[in-house]
């Protein structure tokens, strides 16, 4: 059985390019062949979830049906003019229930539990929760079932994002872009895919496949020799090597997903914007895995802040934002997985951003005394880079292997 996992090797791109050709020609001539697009998506989804992954495929189908029921039931309730908070909460809880199950199953050490989950469940959940929240706000008045299915199952971004928004996607997917605009999308799409080749298949490969195992081995051996916390220079090397691998691998993947979307005339948002030149942690989260951090900003951070202010849970505005950061990053940590290092990663970033806020306020107050020049800017970038790389060392789980296994 042929099983095609997206973007795994150069041959895949030839296959997908040939399959997309009719769609591309159609879009160039101002027509969007929606039926062809649907067939394309179904065939490639089938190839992604067949063979050894069939069990995942069935879960995907069940998941989509389940989410449809929740979303459209909630839409009906909203269209009836009702807006009870508990109904909204129930809808959200139900929507994240499958993901919660998957995350819990991942840490249950049984045969059956290891079968629960399918590729893309995390990213689909962002989309469904977004739609429910926007139905509550009234920013989405009506969800169209077909558009919703296309939005959820949009093939290029299904497995790992970037996370698009319903209203943005809807605006793109019904029409064909102007020729001028589409040519521009083809140009950018081609560039992104080739940039992705460089990132994922060359740079990411060197850092992740060639160097990382060597550095990991050295860190294990030297760590065992040193004892205690098993810290060694090789561990420092591991930290940087892993950070580079993480960025180039994921940014490469994201470029593939965005590039392929552009070919299909959908302007999926970008995920990365030179994250390693960030001046501070806040800046970093505006440049790193942007669609994720913006989702958290809009649907966790802001909501919590408004909620806390409305209910007067906390009087002090500064304190509110600090708690909101903690909630925001803790949830992000839990979303990554229920292990200590993801949760510590979340708390670490929350603390980093809180400290950063304190510093920025302090700096504003003492603007005259604190110098601001090229050197301080370089220092800021250097500091941020190292704080971030250390967080990725936690995130990598290597410390877990080193200390506890």
């Amino acid at each position, binding site marked *: 059985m*042929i099983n095609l996992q997206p973007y795994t090797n150069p041959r895949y791109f030839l296959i997908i390019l040939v399959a997309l050709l009719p769609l591309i020609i159609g879009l160039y001539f101002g027509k969007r062949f929606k039926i062809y697009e649907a067939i394309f998506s179904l065939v490639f989804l089938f190839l992604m979830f067949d063979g050894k992954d069939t069990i995942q495929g069935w879960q995907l189908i069940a998941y989509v049906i389940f989410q449809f029921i929740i979303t459209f039931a909630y839409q009906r309730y909203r269209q009836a003019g009702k807006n009870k908070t508990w109904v909204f909460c129930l809808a959200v809880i139900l929507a994240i229930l499958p993901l919660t199950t998957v995350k819990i199953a991942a840490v249950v050490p049984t045969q059956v539990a290891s079968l629960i989950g399918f590729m893309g469940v995390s990213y689909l959940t962002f989309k469904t929760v977004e739609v429910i929240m926007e139905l509550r706000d009234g920013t989405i008045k009506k969800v169209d079932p077909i558009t919703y299915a296309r939005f959820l199952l949009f093939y290029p971004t299904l497995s790992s994002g970037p996370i698009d928004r319903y209203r943005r996607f809807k605006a793109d997917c019904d029409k064909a872009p102007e*020729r001028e605009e589409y*040519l521009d999308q*083809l*140009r950018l799409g*081609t560039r992104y895919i*080739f940039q992705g080749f460089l990132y994922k298949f060359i740079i990411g490969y060197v850092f992740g496949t*060639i160097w990382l195992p060597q550095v990991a081995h050295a860190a294990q*051996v030297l760590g065992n020799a040193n004892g205690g916390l098993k810290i060694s220079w090789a561990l420092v090397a591991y930290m940087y090597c892993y950070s580079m691998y993480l960025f180039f691998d994921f940014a490469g993947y994201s470029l593939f997903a965005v590039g392929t979307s552009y070919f299909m005339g959908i302007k999926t948002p970008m995920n990365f914007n030179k994250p390693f030149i960030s001046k501070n942690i806040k800046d970093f989260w505006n440049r790193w895995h942007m669609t994720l951090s913006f989702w958290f900003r809009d649907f966790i951070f802001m909501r919590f802040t408004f909620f806390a202010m409305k209910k007067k849970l906390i009087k002090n505005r500064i304190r509110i934002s600090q708690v909101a950061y903690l909630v925001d990053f803790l949830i992000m940590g839990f979303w990554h997985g229920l292990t200590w290092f993801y949760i510590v990663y979340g708390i670490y970033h929350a603390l980093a951003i809180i400290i950063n806020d304190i510093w920025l306020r302090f700096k504003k107050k003492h603007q005259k005394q604190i110098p601001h020049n090229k050197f301080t800017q370089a220092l800021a970038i250097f500091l941020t880079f190292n704080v971030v790389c250390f967080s990725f060392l936690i995130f990598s789980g290597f410390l877990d292997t080193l200390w506890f296994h």
Partner: protein
Amino acid sequence: MSNKRKLWQIFGPVICAFVLLGILFLVPWHFSGKSDSALFKASVSRSNNIFKGQEIKKAAFAKEYVPFYGSSELSRMDPMHPSVLAYKYKRDYKPFLLGGPGSQSLTHFFGMQGTSQELTDKKAVMIISPQWFTKEGQNSAAFSMYFSQLQAVDWILSAKNSEATRYAAKRLLTMPAGTADESTKSALQTLAAGKQISGQTRLLLETRQRILENEDDLFSSLNMPNNVPQIQSGAHKLPGTYAYDNLRQIALDQGAEHTTNNPFDISNSFYTHRLGEKEVARLKGSQKNFDYTKSPEYGDLELVLDQFASQHTNVLFIIPPVNSKWAKYTGLSEKMYQEATNKIVKQLSSQGFDNIVNLTKDGNKKYFMEDTIHLGWNGWLTVDQYVQPFMKQKNQPITYHMDNYYFSKAWANKTNVGPTKVSASKSN
């Protein structure tokens, strides 16, 4: 700017890239000759990429290099290691080390594909470890580290319908690495069923072969581990002229110097890093039930022998012992070890492979082993006493009498095989 022009500007470079890539991979280049220093570096690198490829092996075997097939003992590069001795005393042969942890007969059989022309009527050395002959035989994860599509395609294209071919195809189909590629898998199924692959499949595989060869030629020597300094530092410890007694003294001194932290005469670094006190305590008596007498490895070994026979290669086989002190501690049965050795020797000698160096009773000699199961100082020096006269023999085609019985389950599970008296000649 017209739209046509814009389209060309977007896709022109992409098309050019694909055309160039096609030229790079589909033209039979045989890129520049390999320099002597590059070959030497490759010969002692024990690199998996070199093992998987063929261009460098071909170039080396066409010259004075002799393949030394083996497994992890090849990495014990002390001053008496075959590569060090050949380098120091400027012998007219140079060992080309092939193998590492987990490489066994099946691995070597596929690794030999592509070099049969270069090895026809030539010599080879093979170190067969009885440890390979476990109940499971070749470990599939280790196999995948040494296996490449190039080996598979080479073999499929040259395979003729025979017991050996059907056996090899079936065996490869049990390995995840062998079935990972759909077109290889279906060709293997055809061969396993005793059928011929179709002309269309052949054409497809030949194109693949060309691409894989160019890939091998371009990339296999990249990122190769450099063990030359280690060889040189070993050679540095040797006297200018070869005298067995002197070398033996050095081997004993080196052995004594490097085995001070444990009662097993295991090298200090191996004892500290690979074993450790906790592990040693755990391993006491742990090998009581090890049995090397029944194993699919015997059939796999027959594949290797069949390959040698088809090349008329003159092979020196070396069967190393285990460290006696360690064997006693772990409870490994000496009787079983000898039975397995008898079976290996019988399989070799009955088919005409008479150059056998059976060292399995030397595990108690001082500093014969570098650690638990790997030859070291004195062991390597003893090996050299057989390698030297073997290399002096004239190259001539040898005819073997192969017997398909050795592919059978009956042989794989046969016990109580008596000893056979054969031995390679030894220098005095």
